[in-house]
């Protein structure tokens, strides 16, 4: 394991993604990717009394699912990295309090899923363990409650707004495995281009995604066509367009093999999700469900996954601060 270029980590003993799992809510279940998820809920409460409890249950059951699918008992898992969007990351810590695995709570806003995957990979690659687990969750209703308005408030969503994905994604990494392997990690810097509109997160995060994308290519010497597919986490339609154009100005053409998880997860026309999906579970469930499946079936052999996050909260928005963005990239190859 060593650092190459400005900020990229090359993993010589590349850990392998053993298994992934995803659970999503009812709206995601009506979307185009429904068949790739392990479980689709038909009720956002999932039998719980509050949104927060429901989100905890979702991440807990997702982790249980990935443990069952992988066949690795939880006492053999050395570390767990998990996070979510709620204050003090309570969904993941409450949901996973009975897991009994050493736990690192992490926050990277909607980039948490890849942040967890990257940190777990580094730990395994250093030789500090055999298996590591990572997970992230978000819930439309708990996010609306914390960041925006009560659900029953009769307000209109502007066309640039995004829809928080209800669900969770989780994965188990093994030090030795048969792939797909996490080969390179490019952790992102906090990038703030001064966007203040909390209803336009895609535009706020796109510069961070661009920075990480370009840095990854310069550090590794690769170019966009090296990858079968490049995915960003939740830039949505607005952010996706911006990233394509900004990358063009820097001399990289990503138009042909690039897509965004927030664009993929919903059907824009029929589901009225405006600029697309967002939230930790957006990248989390789309990678755990769809992209990992495509890699298993060898449709994609080399994937660059860049999860994006808007590092903001309702207080900073009210105080008129701009929205800093972050993006972490992992290169996953068979």
């Amino acid at each position: 394991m060593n650092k190459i270029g400005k900020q990229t980590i090359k993993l010589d003993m590349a850990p392998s993604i053993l298994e992934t799992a995803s659970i999503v809510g009812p709206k995601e279940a009506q979307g185009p990717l429904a068949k790739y998820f392990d479980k689709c809920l038909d009720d956002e409460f999932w039998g719980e009394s509050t949104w927060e409890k429901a989100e905890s249950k979702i991440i807990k059951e997702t982790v249980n699912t990935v443990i069952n699918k992988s066949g690795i008992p939880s006492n053999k898992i050395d570390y767990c990295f998990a996070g979510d969007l709620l204050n003090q990351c309570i969904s993941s810590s409450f949901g996973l309090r009975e897991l009994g695995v050493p736990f690192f709570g992490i926050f990277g806003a909607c980039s948490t899923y890849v942040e967890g995957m990257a940190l777990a990979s580094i730990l395994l690659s250093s030789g500090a363990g055999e298996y590591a687990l990572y997970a992230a969750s978000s819930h439309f209703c708990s996010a609306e409650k914390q960041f925006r308005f009560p659900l029953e408030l009769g307000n209109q969503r502007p066309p640039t707004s995004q829809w928080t994905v209800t669900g969770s994604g989780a994965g188990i990494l093994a030090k030795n495995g048969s792939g797909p392997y996490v080969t390179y990690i490019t952790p992102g810097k906090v990038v703030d281009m001064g966007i203040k509109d909390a209803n336009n997160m895609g535009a706020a995060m796109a510069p961070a995604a661009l920075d990480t994308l370009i840095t990854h290519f310069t550090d590794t010497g690769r170019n966009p066509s090296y990858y079968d597919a490049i995915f960003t986490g939740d830039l949505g339609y607005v952010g996706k367009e911006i990233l394509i154009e900004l990358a063009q100005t820097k001399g990289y053409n990503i138009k042909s093999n690039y897509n965004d998880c927030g664009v993929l997860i919903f059907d824009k026309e029929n589901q009225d999700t405006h600029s697309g999906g967002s939230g930790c579970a957006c990248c989390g469930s789309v990678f755990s469900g769809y992209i990992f499946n495509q890699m298993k079936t060898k449709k994609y052999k080399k994937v660059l996954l860049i999860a994006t996050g808007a590092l903001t909260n309702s207080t900073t928005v009210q105080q008129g601060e701009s929205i800093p963005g972050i993006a972490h990239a992992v290169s996953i190859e068979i």
Partner: protein
Amino acid sequence: MEFLQNMDWMQLLRCFVVGGLICVVGQILIDKTKLTPARILVIFVTAGAILGGLGIYQYLVDFAGAGATVPLTGFGYNLAKGAIEAVKESGLVGAFTGGIKAAAGGIAAAVFFGYIASLIAKPKMKKQ
């Protein structure tokens, strides 16, 4: 159905048009600025109170009836009017008591119904 025969249809039309136009002003504010709903409600209630205090809003109320009183500007107008009338009656104290006294029914109803709704109803996910 006797009230249908006694209905002043022109009055109803004026009410519809003025009420609708006040809402259109709000809609333009929503779409053209990035104001949150709370800010827009505040702007409307304050504007209503100022126009009411200047005596201008009264003309609109006389012209459009509920078309001017039902929008939140009418709530502000009502508060201001109450304060002015109470000042006429009881001076300085009236400035403090008049506004809420005039709007008491609406405020109390909203608080009470809100409490009742929270007892019975549960929030549900927006389907779209």
